[in-house]
């Protein structure tokens, strides 16, 4: 496939443009899979009893899972995952993951800034669970 053909042009972008939206469904199997893939075996992400003991509402998703899942929207929009040169977030609210069931995250990306001199665009991501933001200041800088 050609990745070049699908890349956005900096000159076409304005602050506020929505680049896309995505729904991410998170279940316990997903958390176990992320734990294994990342090496983050903190029991708050798979053990209900442990999570309750440390004062959580139950098993919660890895913040790094949510951060990683959200930026896939930007990678696909950019047409080149290697173009994401900077990516940051704050973890503002935990995402409890039921058993059985799924927690559904809604991801929206919008252009936050365009830097023509640097050849970069900043994409601001909004990630919500049950209508409330779970990440703050989620910004990906993409070189186009």
């Amino acid at each position: 496939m050609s990745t070049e053909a699908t890349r956005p042009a900096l000159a076409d972008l304005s602050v506020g443009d929505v680049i896309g939206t995505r729904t991410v469904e998170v279940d316990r199997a997903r958390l176990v899979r992320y734990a294994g893939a990342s090496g983050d075996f903190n029991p708050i992400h798979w053990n209900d009893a442990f999570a309750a003991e440390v004062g959580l509402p139950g098993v919660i998703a890895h913040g790094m899972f949510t951060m990683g899942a959200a930026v896939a929207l930007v990678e696909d929009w950019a047409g080149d995952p290697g173009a994401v040169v900077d990516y940051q977030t704050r973890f503002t609210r935990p995402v409890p993951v039921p058993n059985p069931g799924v927690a559904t995250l809604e991801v929206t990306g919008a252009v936050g800034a365009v830097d023509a001199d640097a050849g970069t665009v900043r994409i601001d991501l909004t990630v919500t669970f049950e209508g409330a933001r779970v990440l703050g200041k989620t910004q990906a800088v993409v070189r186009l």
Partner: protein
Amino acid sequence: MSVNPAYVGREYPANAPYSVGREKLREFSGAVGASHPVHHDLVAARGAGYPDLVAPPTFAVVVAQRAESQLIEDPEAGIDFSRVVHADERFTHHRPIVAGDELVTVLHVDSIVERAGLAMVTTRCEIAALLPDGGTEPVSTVTSTLAVRGEGA
């Protein structure tokens, strides 16, 4: 025990190399739902100009956490992991991580700030690739802040 403020400014020696493998990149990409072909398909990655499969933007956390464990697992640092919440994370990529990279990490403790019963511990991992000539090439900078609740909080 609270977090030991004497650790601010500490720089650890480069750790043992992390070998970035194709199957690990496929596994991590699948786990976060990063489905772009350059993470999975060698022909696509090379067609896009990369020497091998490309890591997703947050893969560097896998490399960084090995270095961060030097601080977190040090009893003298006083970080009780059952009282830790991840506050923020930032990745700055000087170039994308690709399969085949041999990565060494230098961990820095940039700040420890106590406020309202919380200790905010900010670390910075400077990740570099080993070069055939014995030198290193900067690859990624990973900055992470942990919030550690105090005993009474």
